[in-house]
């Protein structure tokens, strides 16, 4: 039970923290992709 609770807790923390961290990293990287047609 302890293990399951811990897994759920870590999972929830990751699910909450990962998207804003990824968004922050993406913004900081200032990257873009483009298709160029001549």
């Amino acid at each position, binding site marked *: 039970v302890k293990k399951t609770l811990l897994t759920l807790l870590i999972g929830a923390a990751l699910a909450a923290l990962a998207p804003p961290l990824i968004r922050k990293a993406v913004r900081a*990287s200032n*990257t873009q*992709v*483009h298709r*160029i047609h001549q």
Partner: protein
Amino acid sequence: MWEDRAMATADAPARREPGRQDWSPWPHYNAAAAGFKGYWYPVTWSSKVTGKPSAFTIAGEKIALVRDGRKTYALHDRCPHRGVPLSLGNQQFPGTISCPYHGWTYNLESGRLCAVITDGPKSPINGKVNVRTYQTAERLGMVWVYIPIGEEEPTDIDEQLPAELVENPFVMGGRIEPRAGNWRFGAENGFDEGHAKYLHRTSLWRIFKTMPTWNLTRVVPGEGANSRWIFRVQDEVYWEADFPGVGRWTNKRWWKSQPPKETFNIGNTGKPKKIDPVITQQGFPGFASLSMPGILRIAYPNFIHYEFYVPVDADNHRYVGVMVNFTEGWQTLRFYVKYLGAIRWLFHGNFSGQDAWMVDVTDAPPERLYRPDVSLTAWRKLAEDEYSRRIAS
């Protein structure tokens, strides 16, 4: 940094370091700490230039960039009235920009003062003041600005761009990043023969690829469409070596791909199985090439990586890294996934971050160059010769 060094030399000559003490053999290059004028420079992504002005410094020139309708405009970022940056203002009338302080309003096309909001419609100063304007262009999803030497008309931007990017359709991913360090250190690092195989051996991008130990390299001028470029040609590539009295050194590891037996000049880690036809068609004599005003091209079998070192001032530049894949249609989606999922983090991030680190801490001249630095001196000569020709004409 450059000013500090000059002062230190004047006040109290420092202990003499070995080697060349200055860059006097290349006087124009030596004087171009804040960049060469007379060239187009990429500034920012097109989508970031909106009706709200933004401020940039390119080759020492302070510039306000703004979009009006579909067209972008660049003006000297200083209101002649009291020196306030125009980039802090906004657009009160179509086709104009107004200073935030007293509403001096300039025509975006001509830079002419066309209204002074706080002095009424018959303001006597109206039409008598101009701010400098710069030509802009949009290429590779970015806004480019021409920084003139004097009052000359801009050169054709497509003649400055790598020819293969003008003639072919492609998909690209890019990263624009402000970086510390002089732009010349950026360009020199990019074309530096000796650095990649040692500095980048620990990068995640090269985790499964063996890097050479050392090479015998020549630098040759390009021909035809590449006559503005110089190329590094690998004559001999050594993947391991015994250093007398020290020991054996190699980047070979059991988990890395085995290096090829023969020497090749596309990519630098393995023998290519298949080379993109557009890249083959270019006939590059070497996989690394460089042109003015600091454009690096690294040709891999299936894509080409470019770096533009955009001068800001003597101590800062903007790194513009672009990865190009000459594909169309659904294949571009594969590139999107690869670029956004991996390349931008591993190559334009971790790998290129190692370069940013070195460019930031490089402190030359003085410098004691070694055999592979033929790449640096060839580049300086190219810059010197091309710029001398340009100002002579």
